[in-house]
């Protein structure tokens, strides 16, 4: 099943010019438990072509949210940047199988 079809919402945003943060709003405790167990941080790292050890992951049961922060794949506004606000990276994560 695609992650995006399972959960309420996946959101990505800049956390300052040098970081990206992705919030997976699971919706309820059951889906949170499922995502928390099934989501492989290494696979997320590969998706963003970022070394695994650079990712910070927070599994927050109270909010039914899994949050992953990483150095922005390209620095915001640099010549290589294609998405100034970093919101499209969420869709990459929505499309992975869990």
């Amino acid at each position: 099943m695609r992650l995006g079809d399972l959960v309420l919402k996946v959101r990505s945003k800049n956390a300052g010019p040098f970081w990206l943060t992705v919030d997976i709003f699971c919706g309820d405790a059951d889906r949170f438990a499922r995502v928390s167990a099934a989501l492989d941080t290494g696979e997320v790292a590969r998706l963003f072509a970022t070394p695994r050890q650079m990712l910070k992951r927070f599994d927050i049961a109270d909010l039914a949210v899994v949050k992953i922060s990483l150095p922005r794949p390209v620095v915001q506004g640099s010549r290589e940047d294609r998405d100034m606000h970093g919101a499209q990276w969420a869709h990459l994560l929505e499309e992975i199988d869990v």
Partner: protein
Amino acid sequence: MATRVLVPSGVLGLGFDRVALARGVAARPDIIAIDGGSTDSGPWSLGAGVSKYSRAATKAEWRHLMQARTQAGVPLVIGTAGTCGTDATVDWMYAITAELAAELGQRVRVARLYSSQPNDRIIAALAGGRVHPLDPAPPVDAAAIADLTNIVALAGAEQIQAALATGADIVIAGRTTDTATIAALPLSRGDHPGAAWHGAKIAECGALCSTNPTSGVILVDFDDRGFTVEAMADSALCTPHSVSAHMLYENSDPFRLHEPGGHLDVTGARYRALDARRVRVEGSEWVPGPYSVKLEGARVAGYQTTILAILRAPRYVAAAREWTDKLGSFLRGEIAGRMGLSPADYTLEFRLIGADGALGALESRTGQPVEIGVLGIVTAATQETAAEIGKLINPFVLHYPLTEDEELPTFAFPYSPATTDRGALYEFALNHVMLLDDPMAAFLIVVTEAGA
């Protein structure tokens, strides 16, 4: 002493619910605080030292807030004035304020808090071991810092408190942290420091911490144990979920927030609904640390000219990447031959809108779009060079054939001229903090009277 802070919206220029604002004013706040910017729309505002919001929208909203200030009889504070919070945008905001004061018949005492940093000050601080990189940080040395078009330091609560202590009716602050303008008064009145910073973080985007984000207006009550937050629009409810979830927003660590002089730790925070509209939060902790301020800086990374062509012929849509690869290598030869430029002198990139325009090499999906927008981006050391390259490539972007044995195709240019000179490409070039002995050592306050 309990402190009531009214936050009209997450940023000046995006609008707020006027009825909700009136309700907030009627609740007799001790201060009205609003943010004027952030880095979120990119390096241009800081690099150029100009506001990204329109003057008309800013003035229209500021007029309402200056009227709300006289009704409430309390100070009005804006942080990060003019999107980037440089001295130039503080003065831009001051000019708007002076105009409005005259138009409204107000006489106001205005404190301007300046956050811009002379390049030499940062070079000296770097040499003195007082500038430290955050992770990840661009490499810096004296020459790189000398090259920055603008540098700002993010003021914290202490500098806002100093500006308020001048007896100002209005404080126009340059770059501040998102939270400082909200946390300053509760902190100086002895409210719980963890609550002051946490409540400020919750309220800094206005009603984004409620069930109706666009309504804007938020009221926060701070005291010696915690804070209570309520949205002022009828349609907006603050719930334990909507409030606690805001710690996720644009925050790489949802439990920890660094500020000048320490950090906020919300690991132990408890969120409790007081009723359907209000949330009470206690248990957040402030952990004091060395007094350092974050630095932001931008420099010119080149000048750009762009060109946009649309491919509609199915054969070209299907082979778009092959076409731009061939076109690109042909053009590099033309640019070398006719202009004498080597690949080190410029970059030429074609992005395929409709294929992987937003994600580039990370895109994992493929498909067959109806058409493809080919966005050519030229970056060079001067605008003249970029524009000249743009003119040189223009006819080939229009007519370049996929194979040699076919009639020349013609693609769609949506406008004339087909090229657009974008001006400077700015880039963020600092992700550092600077240690200060005295919070005011890198900031300046100027107080003047304006208006009728």
